[in-house]
């Protein structure tokens, strides 16, 4: 497999040297040290590894790095450029929508995608749109509240 030598991550061209067959998740975490993107299951069941690729929430554990070249990748580290939190990050803090926080980066990026598709989701739309994400601590009701709050404030990225 061809080597991958650059990736567009959070608006910056990052140089690297990785086998194109490797997962985007591993390259982000282990080569670029962007560890805000989390491993949870490696089979697309928990969505803790969610990143945005050309604006679409994507499970990076199921994505080969070769499939992400030439595309714009946004990880949780790129959601608050210049330190100003994204409305969803603010809303998660306000709603206390986390306990251990391991699912939170993927949850927030999944919600960014949801609000891009559906700016004013009903509760049922949030449940079906976010059902691929697992929060083992069970803060689901707070996450729903956070997404509603961000949506009410026009929380599109």
């Amino acid at each position: 497999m061809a080597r991958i030598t650059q990736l567009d991550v959070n608006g910056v061209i990052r140089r690297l040297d990785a086998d194109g067959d490797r997962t985007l998740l591993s390259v982000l975490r282990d080569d670029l040290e962007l560890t805000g993107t989390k491993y949870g299951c490696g089979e697309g069941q928990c969505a803790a590894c969610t990143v945005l690729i050309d604006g679409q929430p994507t499970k990076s554990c199921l994505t080969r790095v070769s499939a992400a070249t030439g595309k714009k990748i946004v990880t949780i580290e790129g959601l608050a450029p210049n330190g100003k939190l994204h409305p969803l990050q603010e809303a998660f803090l306000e709603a206390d929508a986390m306990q251990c926080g391991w699912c939170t980066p993927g949850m927030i990026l999944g919600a960014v995608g949801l609000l891009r598709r559906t700016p004013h989701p009903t509760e049922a739309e949030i449940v079906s749109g976010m059902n691929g994400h697992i929060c083992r601590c069970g803060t689901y009701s707070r996450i729903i509240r956070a997404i509603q709050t961000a949506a009410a404030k026009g929380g599109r990225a």
Partner: protein
Amino acid sequence: MITRRSFFAVMGGGLAVWIVDNADAQESGGGARRGMNQQAPADVGAWLHIAEDGIITVFTGKVEVGQNARTSLTQAAAEELRAPVGSIRMIMGDTALTPFDQGTFGSQTTPQMWPRIRRAAATAREMLVDLAAKKWNVDASRITVAAGKVSVNGHSAGFGELTQGQKLLRTIPASEALTPAADWKVAGTSVAKVNGREIVTGAHPYAYDVHRPGMLFGKVLYPPQFGAKLVSVDASAAEAIPGVKVIRDTFHSRAMSEGAGMDLVGVVAPDPATAEKGLAALKAEWKPLEGQPSSKDVFAYYKRHARAGGGRGGRGGRGQAAEPETAPANPNLVSYTVAYIAHTPLEPRAAVAEFGADGKLTVWTGTQRPFGVKSELAQDLGIPEDDIHVLMPDTGSGYGGKHNGDAALEAARLAKAAGKPVKRCWTREEEMTWAYFRPGGLIEVFGKADPSGKLVEWEFHNYNSGPSALNTPYDVAGTKTEQLHQTLSPLRQGSYRGLAGTANHFVRESYMDELAHGLKMDPLEFRLKNISDERLRNVLVAASDKFGWKSRRKTSGTGFGLACGMEKGGYVAACAEVSVTSGVVKVVRVTQAFECGGVVNPEHLHNQVDGAIAMGIGGALFEAIEFGDGKIATNRLSKYRVPRFADMPKIESVLLDRRDLTPAGAGETPIMAVAPAIGNAIFDASGQRIRSLPMAPGNKLAAGSTAAE
């Protein structure tokens, strides 16, 4: 290990307060739990330091696994120091800097550490007032402390200024009385998670995220079946892969099923993918362990291996002589079963180990017992505890499942052999196969009530689940027998949120419903007739009032149930509404009341109670470890269902704030009433009494018994 003598050398000058239970042991630099010739360590201590630049640091051996202890303990210090929450830094679970602590479990952080940190902070405040009184030559009683400043008349100074140039240390015993706080200002309020910003920006480094220069990635060979013994391994293909190094070693004292002498075959490589390839290229031959039970017949296995005398056995196959129980059983006993379940912390076990040039070992790992892991490492590697430093970054949850140092031991062994730092991250499959499980259990119960609804007989036998909440909180006028039966478990098992409290409450509270139904008495009324504990009555009344129990209206396919209990200083009652349509159960609504003394942080307590309800639904309805032939069949999230958004009912939690009572922990007890409340609601909806957890595996109601049986 930091001592009072070395403290200022490490921390710099300023003012310090030490809370210790056993001052002599602390001074000797103890900390070992098992080391030879070492005194018992000073347990559950805490210390607090105010540096000359005003930075306030609190040190505790407790750790943060998502339960928000970092925030609640910061509140304790802020309350007594009269300082802003943001001015306080909390160092947790760092074996080089914090006092020894047995571990973060048993809902003990709030009862143990909260008052100690308040005492330390209150003492520091008094010391600051004394310094100010001297400095300005005024009477101490006129001095006020507020918003991180010490003031009187026209004078005002920050904490750091007052300590300037001095090294002031006061040691006070943990038993020193703490003035009850009549009107808390910071304590008892919903302070936001203190490191929430690091979480939502992805900046917080968990153990899985730790990166060290020159670090290699390690993998470890595990057998295809539990208990299988390694016969031979051909590593030539693995060693031929560029970058791969194969490591062969033996654990001396690893606390796994295989026990001491467990073989270690591992690989290290510069990146995880190469390490995986190396692992896959190992050709190993195994001798299987035969005759192990499956998840289908494990309950009979418990019964068969039960030994007289109580207590709990370890994993099977260790050759312990079993003395079978011979006492004749009560023929009226009704059997319930509880499946093994997996904690499934979303961050699996992980560790990074690094040996310094001086031979000293540093390990970053996610564990509920950093000092315990230090001891495990010392024992297994044969190096002194003083040469080991374990750091515990705030971790991606534990729920009782991260008590030991499996990943730490593996990382340390591999790092030692490789001569480089090694990171060892467990995969989800490893986490769900080789970590320990919540015990399965067989529970037999019988009880009788007189026609007025008073309990007159109670008999309860638990095989394998454990002793937590084994004893009924109800008054029993006649004979009462409650017993734990020691037996063997085919799977590695250990603590889980609430321990056996969930299993014992499920059975007791389901059976109480069976009795109420037999008496044709309302389940609430029946319980209240048999509870004299006022705190238990209060939560039951609060939950049922909020739920609208007395005005509930049954429609076809819906049902209502309730349950209550107490454990670890917490009192809980839950009411549930379910719908059952063609055997498919949906939990519609859960209302839960919880009381654990004074409420330290209302929002975080609501979050904890709501989270316990969510997690409790998984164990109640669908979580189960299926195993057979020495293999776990449900070792991935695609095969093991955990609660998701769509499984959530409408959740309401009611907190009873008893500021007249010392705060108790809240991490566990709120899970205990969930399953029986749901089970009782299922019976109400369907007429089926489900006497097994989970009650709806594969989304369909399990086989139950009708009321007539």
